[in-house]
């Protein structure tokens, strides 16, 4: 693993602001980003990354390669929750296992975005269509996990369950709709639109990301306390499963003939875990599952692991294999 990558990543302002947030909590500072600002920052990031992706697709066109990659992304997002579920079932109830499986099968847009900043700093290009891959990977894990839960769980107390609600929630939740919508708008509005929007979506992007990761550091550090209850098994899972997923994703990306940048983004998608869209979906579809497990796992373990250690690690492996 290349030491320069690790250090370069460490000295990247967004990562440093994440640590500042963690520090703030550990010295019990009253530093905080008041709601609903973190929400709007995350909407901004989705909006900007969607538009950039769309502009990228408009510039490069859609080739067969792209279709194959998107298919592979969808498959990974459906397969990961399957094996995650059966690993988790060794220690957890059906509901909790299914909810955590959904969390890890789906993706984290902020991890993806932080990864784009990492690549940008290293001047490694990646295809705009990877944003489409991200959007496609948000939903399948939710469906798979709920199916597993409904097949395996006996306790279905009272409330009517609605598949149509679930589908709507999986495919039209705010994050998916905003990314997909911005992507399509990026494609439709082309060169002229891109130019008019660049100062907002590109120039100030890194600054907003720093601010947002400051908040993520605060939130992650606060949630870490919850994990004491969760125990070593879940904490270990939160690090090992991303590594397993990456170990599958990297050879797959190689086999599909992806460029290094695209392979890296594909890997980070498979290795990341959701903490915005999936918790909301789980709360509605698997209310028995305990959000104090799946939220801190993805937020306080997997997210920091991926942006601090995972990104340089995955890229070092990819660099070695591709060269």
């Amino acid at each position: 693993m290349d030491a320069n990558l690790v250090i370069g990543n460490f000295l990247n302002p967004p990562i440093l602001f994440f640590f500042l947030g963690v520090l703030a909590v550990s010295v019990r500072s009253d530093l905080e980003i008041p709601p609903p600002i973190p929400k709007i920052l995350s909407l901004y990031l989705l909006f900007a990354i969607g538009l950039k992706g769309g502009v990228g697709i408009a510039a490069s066109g859609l080739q067969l390669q792209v279709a194959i990659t998107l298919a592979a992304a969808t498959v990974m997002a459906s397969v990961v929750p399957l094996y995650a579920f059966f690993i988790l079932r060794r220690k957890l109830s059906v509901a909790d296992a299914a909810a955590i499986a959904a969390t890890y099968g789906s993706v984290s847009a902020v991890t993806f975005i932080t990864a784009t900043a990492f690549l940008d700093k290293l001047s490694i290009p990646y295809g705009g269509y990877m944003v489409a891959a991200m959007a496609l990977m948000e939903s399948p894990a939710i469906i798979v996990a709920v199916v597993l839960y409904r097949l395996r769980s006996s306790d279905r107390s009272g409330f009517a369950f609605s598949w149509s609600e679930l589908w709507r929630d999986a495919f039209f939740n705010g994050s998916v709709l905003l990314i997909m919508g911005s992507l399509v708008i990026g494609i439709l509005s082309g060169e002229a639109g891109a130019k008019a929007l660049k100062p907002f979506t590109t120039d100030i992007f890194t600054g907003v990301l720093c601010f947002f990761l400051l908040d993520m550091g605060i939130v992650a550090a606060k949630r870490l306390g919850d994990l004491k209850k969760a125990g070593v098994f879940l904490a270990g899972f939160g690090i090992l499963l991303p590594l397993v997923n990456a170990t599958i994703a990297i050879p797959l990306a190689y086999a599909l003939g992806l460029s290094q940048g695209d392979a890296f983004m594909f890997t980070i998608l498979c290795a990341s875990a959701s903490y915005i869209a999936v918790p909301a979906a789980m709360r509605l579809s698997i209310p028995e599952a305990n959000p104090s497990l799946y939220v801190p796992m993805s937020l306080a373990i997997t997210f920091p692991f991926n942006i601090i250690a995972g990104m340089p690690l995955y890229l070092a492996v990819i660099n070695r294999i591709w060269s």
Partner: protein
Amino acid sequence: MIPVKKIEIIIDEFELPSLLNLLDQAGVSGYTVIKDATGKGDRGVRSGGDLTRVFANSYVLTVCPEDKLDLIVETIRPILKQRGGVCLVSEAQWLIH
């Protein structure tokens, strides 16, 4: 002023649409909602929601005539049972204007 029953409900923000639906079905004449509540209860600390709204509470107040109380309470009991939350009933006088 006429005597009425005051029903206060604290429930997950996610369940709010379902709860308000149930209240409508039970035929309440109105309700008031304060979102962005936080709290602590059987399910631990609920610190409010921002990125993930999963830990946010809402406070709902609805006032009804005495004879409607039972219907309303029985309508909302199942959702509290399954999804958690608190319901309080007390006496009040409604100012007719």
